[in-house]
């Protein structure tokens, strides 16, 4: 099975690889795994005034998983939290022309975005409660 040009491009030059300190107040961290293949994906967002100003990822997995998370960081940057929550795995499938066997990689990326946003929100509520 051949990867699409876009997958190859993200795989060869992944955008926004790296990490933020997860303790920082305005950082949200999502760590998710794909049971089908044992891939692990970490996606982090940095939020200012309810807007995602920066995003980083690190993924251990196949080319499609790396491309999906790389694309996800590109897409969330500059979006408000609510806008970022509207990103669907099917958008990623379409953009990267993922074949059916690789759809779970895009699901993983959507889960990672959601779980990073949830982590950010949870930690903010904790902080305001203090």
């Amino acid at each position: 099975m051949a990867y699409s040009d876009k997958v190859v491009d993200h795989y060869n030059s992944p955008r926004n690889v790296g990490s933020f300190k997860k303790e920082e107040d305005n950082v949200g961290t999502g760590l998710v795994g794909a049971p089908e293949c044992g891939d692990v994906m970490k996606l982090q967002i940095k939020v200012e005034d309810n807007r995602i100003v920066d995003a980083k990822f690190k993924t251990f997995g196949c080319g499609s998983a790396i491309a999906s998370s790389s694309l996800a960081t590109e897409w969330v940057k500059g979006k408000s939290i609510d806008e970022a929550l509207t990103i669907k795995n099917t958008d990623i499938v379409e953009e990267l022309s993922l074949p059916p066997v690789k759809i779970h990689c895009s699901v993983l990326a959507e889960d990672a975005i959601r779980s990073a946003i949830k982590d950010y929100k949870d930690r903010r509520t904790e902080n305001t409660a203090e």
Partner: protein
Amino acid sequence: MKHDHLSSHSVCLGCNITMATPLFCFSCNSIQRLSTKPNYFEIFDLPYTYNLDIKRLEDNYQKLAAELHPDFYLQSASTEKRQSQESSSLLNRAYTALKCPMSRASYLLELLSHGKPLDERKLPAGFLEDIFELQETLEDLLVDVEDHAEELAAVKSDVEKRLNALQEAVSQLFGNIEKDPSNQKNIVESIQVNLNAERYLQRLLERISRSNQV
């Protein structure tokens, strides 16, 4: 699911004798026509259990494979010819599924949960964080495999230890079902969580062994 460790036995369509396996009658040496899909354990005349007698599995596999091989049915009627192909492939699937502890556990869970889907995502608390850290460690070590041979071996043995611990836990949990069938649903869920975790560790081991081949 039966807990008496006895599989139900089929009766030969030719000579009416109770057979050890639904695939073949060793009494009148005839291949059996299968109308329903037999249970993998019944194929090998084994009890429904995780702690399997592997030697018996292998012996019975060899015995059956020798009888069912399509080469012996080249001159037979077309129904028998087809049956030998179907039974041989079923035999191989059953053998592969029962031989490996992980797939054997999955198959047993499938039987125990009556086909109801189990949560394949749930993991022990903190497990994914551990895996991510191990992957990061590996990434650094794999930059120069020869330089880090010792550290790689240490990571490998750590992962193997974790895997063994999980398999040990799975084995105990299956034992618990037999002791306390009323708690079966909860135990099945715990086993599934352990199996989910095993898959990630397996993946790490594959990554390490690939690096050694380079």
